[in-house]
């Protein structure tokens, strides 16, 4: 990210802050239900000084990271396999399409039954939701291999593994990166939601406590924190992308013209 990009991004956030400050102050929404942005940030600042918040954050982020990693590895492996095994795409399509729209939230009873309010519950929900995001992107990505490039690989008799590593994955990478970005936020959302709904410890539980305690500013402060984490995670994925996709038109194009 260049300095200019950062400045633009900051300007965008500033506009958002301005709107969130103005709406309650102008009375469009009562301050009791949506406090002004400055008050939210103040509350967030206060929350950040408490130890409970950091330990909750640690719980949430570790569930997030673990769940995302499991979902990502599973989806990439399965997606590649489906692409590599002839007929597998057709054989799995109906099942994938059936299972994909089943909401994680509907699995909550199952999760509670199996894991109670432990990490396992959160993981089950996170992995289930994030997995499909990556899988679909992988399936589209691996199907996008340039035919001439594939013929090149075949004629030089590149092995399955080399073809996978040197041709299929690089082609799918832009799709997979988008999948990773989607899955990262879905995993985070599910981590928070699981805590919110099941009550396993973490940021979501704190949001739930704040909600049922009627502490509106705290609720929004915690939501804001969730959003900030999203921005940070995206920055990380973007910088990863710039390194991995330096060759791709979408990245290299920015340097030229």
């Amino acid at each position: 990210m260049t300095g200019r990009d950062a400045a633009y991004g900051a300007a965008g956030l500033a506009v958002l802050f301005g709107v969130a400050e103005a709406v309650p102050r102008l009375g469009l929404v009562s301050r009791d239900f949506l406090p002004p942005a400055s008050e939210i940030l103040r509350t967030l600042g206060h929350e950040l000084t408490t130890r409970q918040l950091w330990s909750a954050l640690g719980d949430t982020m570790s569930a997030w990271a673990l769940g995302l990693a499991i979902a990502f590895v599973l989806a990439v492996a399965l997606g590649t396999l489906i692409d590599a095994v002839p007929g597998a795409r057709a054989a799995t399509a109906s099942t994938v399409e059936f299972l994909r729209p089943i909401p994680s939230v509907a699995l909550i009873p199952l999760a509670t039954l199996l894991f109670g309010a432990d990490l396992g519950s959160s993981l089950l929900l996170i992995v289930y939701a994030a997995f499909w995001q990556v899988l679909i992107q992988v399936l589209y990505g691996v199907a996008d291999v340039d035919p001439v490039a594939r013929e090149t690989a075949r004629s030089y008799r590149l092995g399955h593994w080399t073809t996978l590593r040197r041709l299929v994955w690089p082609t799918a990478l832009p799709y997979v990166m988008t999948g990773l970005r989607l899955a990262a936020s879905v995993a985070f959302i599910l981590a928070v939601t699981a805590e919110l709904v099941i009550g396993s410890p973490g940021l979501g539980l704190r949001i739930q406590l704040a909600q049922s305690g009627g502490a509106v500013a705290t609720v929004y402060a915690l939501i804001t924190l969730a959003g900030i984490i999203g921005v940070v995670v995206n920055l990380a994925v973007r910088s990863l992308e710039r390194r991995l996709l330096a060759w791709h038109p979408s990245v290299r194009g920015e340097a030229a013209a």
Partner: protein
Amino acid sequence: GDSGEPAGKGASSGSGGGTRSVTIGAIAIVDTAPVYLAQSQGFFKKHGIDAKITSVQGGAASITGVMGGQFAFGFANTTSLLTAQQQGLPLKVVANGVASTGERDTDYSAVLVPEGSPVKSAKDLAGRTVAVNQLKNIGDTTVRAAVRKDGGDASKVEFVEMPFPDMPAALAKGRVDAVWEVEPFVTQATGQGARAVAWPYADAAPDLTVAMYFTTQPTLQKDPELVKDFTAAMNEALAYADAHPDAVREILKSYTSIPAEAIAKIKLPKWPAEINRESVQTVADDARQDGTLTKDADVAALLP
């Protein structure tokens, strides 16, 4: 269906010393103050129980957790327990949970309407939209009972589902005509100008037993000692909570996020050690009448 795994992870015997580790699933609201007090005041320890309280989102979650063996004991409201029992879940109540104060103006739950609403009392709710936290649960059952008692047509009340914390805003915006709230939101909403028109817990039955602590039949059979000790500890805690409102307000600061100034103002429920069996029967009958329950409930089998 089956019985679930009795006393799985939820309870495990300590080595010889007689202390048993127990996980309890309970929602973190005002109602469950005694169980936290039981822990902080040492009632559990006194009875050889090393308790861990896990916060859950609602009664259904704690019932599922208890059924799955994740919790040895759970906390759920009367309607949830009756519904679960009717579906064949072998639940057994082991201690009282929380009760209404029985007096209209001081009760900790109320139906609120915005300033200037034409609704004057419960019977005016007919033809109106009322928000409750969960449909087919204790809220709509008791609100209907209150409307009937007041001479209104309970079948004309429209219910819509909404989490308690979102109700004050919806009420202020006029999205609904009335809301059924509990503390601390009753205090919050009345502070913003809302007016109480009915007190369903107080209206539905005298000294209504709102919620209870429970376990599964298999746990009861396998480890009656543990259950007995839990009941004893809880009964002490209930009595203590009833007698020491300041201790209750103090402990609320530790496990809820209710702002300190609200804690000082909110109305507290009652925590009698005795379950009011008639009130449970009344709730069961009302629920049966509304169709929330599909069969006559076997209250005796559920209660100890």
